[in-house]
């Protein structure tokens, strides 16, 4: 034995140190703090499904986390295989991958998915890659009939080839035999300036042909020197049928900052709807006092919600697309001590308000307010539990929220 001391001692050192290291790091679990929704008034059922996404930070090192009413999960606590699946995979995509495992292979862009009771559709844009040069784009379409498990796939060339550098999928809808595919087409003109157009393509599924190409356009009041930016308001994780597509366009102006740099400042915005069945486009007639500038817009079936933080509180408005009428418009006053900037989001007809930052000296408020009545359903703060000594100087930033 003594002759083999080299191999024995090296192996021993390796097994002992590497072994202890990984066993200890597995046993220790995490010593990161737990965050809880601490109720002050209201009904705690209102926050049962709420998930906050954030980042926990001590010094320079950040660690992404998800806070729900039950637990706080840090990204670095996930096992290797959980990380492999992706930390931020949307629940909808995960459900589809589990139910239609083979059909969903290689299909990970949720904007290209449409699902109803009868079928599951995936549309992808495909272009021959030529660096920064306009190229020919096609739609690669796959349709799965849920009952018969039949799969149909076909390819349709996007018109005006060699005009667009990029064509991004935004949304897919299927009405009977017509498929409506919404894309953002990026092109570069002769001067090297880029521009974007939103197109709604209508495809005839039976004949596998493109039958219509519409551009979403707004009132041509856009003056020279103004930039504009348009996007689809629909949440990309809504993969079912809707009646309307809603777009928001923001006008921007270059403003010189104190440091001499230019940056784009929004100076105006408007909303436009596209009625899928008729193909009719029209701007939403919002009165002067409901200004969508610097506001968040949400679509829930045929109701548009608008929320905007003002000096007086949070102004929320509901606009009904069917009746073309404003159903509610009110300013919700927040408790006087809430002066910090806040995250706001309207989900399921309720306004969720949460602070941006939690730290030793800052407590983030959490509020759930019914948009229609303006009543506060839940009021509380985000509290820390099990805070270890070495994390006293922490900072936790919340950047998004979701309902599970």
């Amino acid at each position: 034995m003594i002759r083999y001391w080299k191999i024995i001692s090296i192996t021993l050192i390796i097994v002992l140190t590497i072994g202890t290291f990984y066993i200890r790091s597995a046993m220790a679990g995490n010593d990161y703090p737990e965050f809880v929704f601490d109720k002050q008034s209201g009904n705690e059922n209102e926050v049962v499904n709420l998930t906050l996404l954030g980042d926990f930070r001590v010094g320079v090192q950040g660690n992404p986390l998800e806070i729900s009413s039950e637990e706080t999960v840090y990204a670095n606590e996930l096992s290797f295989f959980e990380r492999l699946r992706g930390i931020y995979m949307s629940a909808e995509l995960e459900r589809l991958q589990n139910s239609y495992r083979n059909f969903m292979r290689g299909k990970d862009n949720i904007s290209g998915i449409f699902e109803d009771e009868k079928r599951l559709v995936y549309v992808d844009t495909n272009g021959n890659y030529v660096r920064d040069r306009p190229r020919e784009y096609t739609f690669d379409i796959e349709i799965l009939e849920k009952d018969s498990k039949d799969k149909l796939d076909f390819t349709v060339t996007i018109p005006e080839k060699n005009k667009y550098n990029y064509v991004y999928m935004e949304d897919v809808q299927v009405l009977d035999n017509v498929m409506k595919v919404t894309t953002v087409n990026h092109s570069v003109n002769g001067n090297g300036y880029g521009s974007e157009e939103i197109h709604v393509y209508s495809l005839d599924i039976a004949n596998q042909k493109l039958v219509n190409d519409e551009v979403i356009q707004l009132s041509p009041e856009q003056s020279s020197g103004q930039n504009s930016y348009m996007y689809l308001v629909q949440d990309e994780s809504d993969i079912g049928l809707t009646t309307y597509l809603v777009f928001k366009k923001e006008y921007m102006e270059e403003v010189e900052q104190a440091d001499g740099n230019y940056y784009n400042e929004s100076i105006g915005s408007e909303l436009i709807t596209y009625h899928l069945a008729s193909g009719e486009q029209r701007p939403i007639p919002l009165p002067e006092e409901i200004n969508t500038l610097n506001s968040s817009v949400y679509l829930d079936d045929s109701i548009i919600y608008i929320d905007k933080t003002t000096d007086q509180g949070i102004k929320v408005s509901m606009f009904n697309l069917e009746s073309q009428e404003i159903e509610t418009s009110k300013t919700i006053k927040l408790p006087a001590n809430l002066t910090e900037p806040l995250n706001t989001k309207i989900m399921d007809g309720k306004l969720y308000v949460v602070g941006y930052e939690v730290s030793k000296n800052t407590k983030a408020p959490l509020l759930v307010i019914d948009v229609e009545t303006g009543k506060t359903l839940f009021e509380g703060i985000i509290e820390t539990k099990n805070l270890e000594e070495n994390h006293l100087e922490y900072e936790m930033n919340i950047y998004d929220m979701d309902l599970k």
Partner: protein
Amino acid sequence: MRSYFKLVNFELGRFMKIYLVLIGITIISQIAGVIVKSRGYLSEANQAIIVNSMPKEQFLEQFGQMSMGTFTQSIWFMGPIALCIAALIFYCFFIWYRDWFGKNTFIYRLLMLPTARLHVFLAKVTTIFLLVIGLVSIQLILLPIESMILKFIVPIDLRADLGIMEIISNSRYLFVLVPDSFIQFIINYGIGFMVVFIIFTAILFERSFRLKGILLGIVYSVLSIIVFIFPLLLEIFFGVNYLYPTELFVTEVILAIIVICAAIWTSNYLINKKVTV
């Protein structure tokens, strides 16, 4: 089996002197480094707070707290690690060529041993494996010691204490050497040793066919790498990604095993039939 262990022990012995020197350099440089860096920070703090009467809060805001994170980014810490990596990469080649170009063509005696010649090949792979993982272990032992020294020199209000895992995940390079999950550790070093197998086989090609062998060795290496990264090539060049991440992982494990088996089989053939002394 016994002859294999003998050979590993023998190969370790041949590198032991240089190995201990490498470990010595690492220990001295890192321990000295943590002392120098901590003292340097402390004298900066003294200069600012006592001599220039800057408030402590302002000093901390400007210079930040002292922590192991600062130290692991310095040359004192990374320098010896880089040196050890370079030395071991060099030794991957030297472990073979020393047998041919040493004083008395030692390979002649190794190949004459009354044991399977593949044992010589496997013993050399095992040696490199033990040497590499051994250095990683030494680093894992050193980290808490360095952390203790830092705590000893810098007072608590000027430093941020990090756990060993936090020190490691703070440094991009250290995180590759010691990832936070054991599976990732096996993946990192598994890929590393697959490459060692490929290099050794390529060396045997060269030793078997000399100049022509260099070309064969290169072709063989490229082929092996292509087999291993085939699913990724499909995705990059043809946009094909049919596999879910877990399936891709299993595929890669199988491909790595295939590449390693091919390397062992090829080496066995070369070292038995083709190698020239």
